[in-house]
């Protein structure tokens, strides 16, 4: 071998440890870019989350405030109690039509006292400012306090949804040009009365506890009744899905022999977990309403449908919890003479309980927010204006549910209902948040690592 040295051609590229050549630069740049794509993707995800949450909060927070008008209403005896013996049964004959003029005239008096200049002429002209529900509210109060007839009583009366929208910036003088429900003169009046503190916004408990209202009374609608509907549905789901789910998981995890039947069950469960929720709605419609003739729109039907839907979730998480209990526990129990059933129920199940409960709560949260199946079993289109009379009718009489109520509001034409829908979402999300927090706390507190 000779010590041949390459002399011809180009000089080899000079690069040492300290200089970076073009190719490495390119590779490093591509590395940096790739990393940035990843960060950008996460940023996009978080950005969407922030936009979503801020849209919910900024649009929905208004639903918790409502505009009220403080009106001293003169309860004229000649109109409300002609005989004068203050008998509620007799006074009940006066319908809300008898009360409306009283309220309107009282409001008109307030307007006159305020000294506002207005082309409007009498009480009938300001009725657009008051909610149509005001008369019923005053009537209920009068029937409960019959001896106050003849006096002048201060009422906080709901303003109509247009006035409410004006105070919240949703309604303006331009937007009502075509609106026959309110005129610009009313808004001028509202401005004056607002200065004097007669018209004011305050926290709206009615939205949280109240019942749904008809299409034209957005200011009165509340989520309370549908919340009860959701509650009864969740009770049904909990009472059915937890025991059935736990029993199924115990069988599959602890007792099932490996054979075709077990395989078949497992395939079924994993497939059911991926079936679209609307298909469960079809099942609920066909099985519980068409076939079993259960009442339409009843929470129990919703609960049964959602039970079938949440079962796979609960089974999957329960099995994971059972699997996490180490075999040594079972072996020890079997070793001191327990039967397999005793080992499972006395030792494995209690240890797996926190995990099972966590999974159940998360399954319930999922069921609480589910809407699509409820549409098919008739929980929309029904206006939930009455509280259920008792536990029984709570399960069996028609009701709505929180997500169904939100959907119903979103479908209505009046934009005042959009605010209610967003507000409903805030409440729904608070419930979900609370349930998930409970699940997390349970897990933190009771979970054991083996």
């Amino acid at each position, binding site marked *: 071998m000779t010590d041949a040295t390459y002399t011809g051609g180009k000089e080899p590229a000079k690069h040492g440890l300290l200089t970076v050549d073009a190719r490495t630069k390119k590779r490093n740049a591509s590395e940096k870019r790739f*990393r940035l794509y990843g960060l950008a993707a996460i940023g996009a995800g978080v950005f969407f989350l922030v936009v979503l949450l801020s849209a919910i909060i900024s649009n929905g927070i208004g639903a918790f405030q409502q505009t009220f008008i403080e009106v001293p209403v003169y309860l004229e005896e000649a109109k409300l109690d002609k005989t004068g013996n203050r008998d509620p049964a007799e006074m009940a004959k006066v319908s809300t039509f008898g009360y409306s003029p009283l309220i309107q005239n009282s409001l008109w008096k307030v307007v006159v006292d305020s000294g506002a200049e207005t082309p409007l002429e009498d009480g009938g002209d300001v009725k657009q400012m008051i909610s149509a529900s005001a008369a019923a509210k005053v009537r209920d109060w009068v029937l409960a306090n019959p001896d106050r007839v003849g006096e002048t009583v201060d009422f906080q009366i709901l303003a109509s949804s247009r006035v409410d929208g004006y105070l919240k910036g949703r309604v303006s003088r331009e937007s009502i040009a075509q609106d026959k429900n309110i005129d610009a003169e009313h808004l001028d009046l509202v401005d004056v009365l607002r200065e004097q503190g007669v018209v004011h916004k305050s926290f709206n408990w009615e939205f949280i506890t109240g019942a749904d209202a008809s299409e034209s009374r957005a200011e009165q609608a509340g989520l309370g009744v549908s919340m009860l509907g959701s509650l009864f549905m969740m009770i049904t789901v909990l009472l059915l899905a937890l025991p059935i789910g736990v*029993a199924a998981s115990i*069988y599959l995890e602890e007792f099932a022999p490996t054979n075709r039947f077990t395989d078949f069950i497992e395939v*079924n469960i994993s*497939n059911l977990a991926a079936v*679209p929720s609307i298909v469960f709605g*079809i099942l609920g419609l066909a099985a519980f309403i068409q076939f079993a003739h259960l009442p339409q729109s009843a929470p129990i039907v919703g609960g049964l449908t959602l039970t079938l839907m949440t079962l796979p979730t609960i089974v999957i998480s329960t099995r994971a919890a059972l699997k996490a209990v180490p075999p040594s526990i079972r072996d020890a129990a079997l070793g001191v003479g327990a039967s397999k059933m005793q080992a499972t129920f006395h030792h494995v199940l209690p240890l797996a309980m926190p995990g099972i409960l966590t999974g159940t709560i998360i399954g319930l949260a999922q069921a609480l927010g589910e809407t699509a199946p409820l549409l098919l079993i008739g929980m929309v289109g029904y206006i939930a204006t009455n509280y259920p009379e008792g536990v029984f009718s709570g399960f069996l009489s028609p009701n709505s549910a929180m*997500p169904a109520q939100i959907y119903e509001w979103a479908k209505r034409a009046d934009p005042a209902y959009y605010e209610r829908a967003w507000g409903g979402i805030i409440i729904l999300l608070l419930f979900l948040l609370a349930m998930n927090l409970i699940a997390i706390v349970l897990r933190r507190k009771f979970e054991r690592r083996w």
Partner: protein
Amino acid sequence: MPVLWLILIVLALAVAGFIAGRARAISGAGDDRRALHSLPNYYGWNVAMKAMVPAFLALVIWLIAQPFIVNTKATSLLPETAIPEGSTLGLVMSDVRRVADGLDLAVEQGLLGASEAADLTVTGSDIRATLGSAGVAVGSEISPEILAAAQSYRSSNATGNLLRSLVVIGLALVGGALALAQTKPDFRARNAVERGIRAILVGAASLAILTTIGIVLSLVFNTIEFFRIYPASEFFGSFTWSPSFGGGSQLGIWPLLWGTLYISLIALLVSVPIGLFAAVYLSEYAGPKFRSVAKPALELLAGIPTIVYGLFALLTVGPLLLSVFGRDGLGWMQAGTAVMTAGLVMGIMLIPFVSSLSDDIINAVPQSLRDGSYGLGATKSETIKQVILPAALPGIVGAILLAASRAIGETMIVVLGAGAAARLSLNPFDAMTTVTAKIVSQLTGDADFASPEALVAFALGMTLFVMTLGLNVFALYIVRKYREQYD
């Protein structure tokens, strides 16, 4: 006797059986528990179980079967002529049921005597007014045939209910008594109870199969019913969807399928790149601290109910897109509800789905592969692109297929965000509609259940079920078949 009372009676019998069984076992052993084969409670449970389980099973079966039998009996009383022109047997039967329920209610409220209700004639009294005051509204005049059917309905229901109570309570008594007779010190009560519990566990596990069967049956029967009154060739062959509740509808599935697939495609175009890159960053680059913040934040998106996304599409994203692409902007968009609106929002919803599934899969790729690649001088991104992603590919494809199946079956976003017009168009800013949205609108409309306009929803549901099931099975198959086995 109402069902609730029946349940309470059986429960009470079971409790009594428990106490009796336990006491009998102890006294049989001469107060010496050691002489018993099992713990005393097991003897009690044995009696309670044998009293309760057969009785409840019989009750459930009875509750399912009785309406069937009563219905067929009442239906057989209705002659062909009792069904008016343009009505169906189902409608007439619902009238019959309403009349029967109304009469029961009237008796309950004391408006009618029990014998009076049984002897009602159409001409003799104004039944409609009586029913009306009981709170049951009957639409049309009641014909003698309907009244006869309703009376038969009532009487067979009454006998059925009486028999039901007798059978259920009888079963509880007999079962409890037999078990009580078994109770002797050397009776293996624990084994008996455990066999029973095991049977209950198997039953609970089989509910999954029952649910699947229920889904399939409810879809299949109604779909067959649909194809009997509407030709299948039209359903699968027509390119027009124009239901009209007056009849003469054209119910072609293609515009709906197109809308579904188009929206899903856009959703996947949004969610797959974002989800995948996020997963890669989270599993390969992010430190534990960043990961512990970013991962739950992304997963929050998955915990938000779909109705929220639907509202977000309808009220926020739609108007936003309209202001850019609408008449004031580029002029491509007519209204806020469009394929783009629904697709974008659905994409956002699917991001965490894709990212957490892919994250798991990427994490499952063994470290030795990475180390080998780094050892050869590859940068991190080169390792990811050339080693990790190819190794994780089957899993990622599976995740994307699962996301696609989610997108196809998603309902609320498209109901609120996609519009209602069924059309075959390429413009993503047009309103289109999907299979799921039409299932909702056809079944929540005022259509009678027997009309093709309502029944088509079941055929659509069947299509949806088959599509999503196929995608899921295919996804699992791909994951299983192409998964590299590392250990």
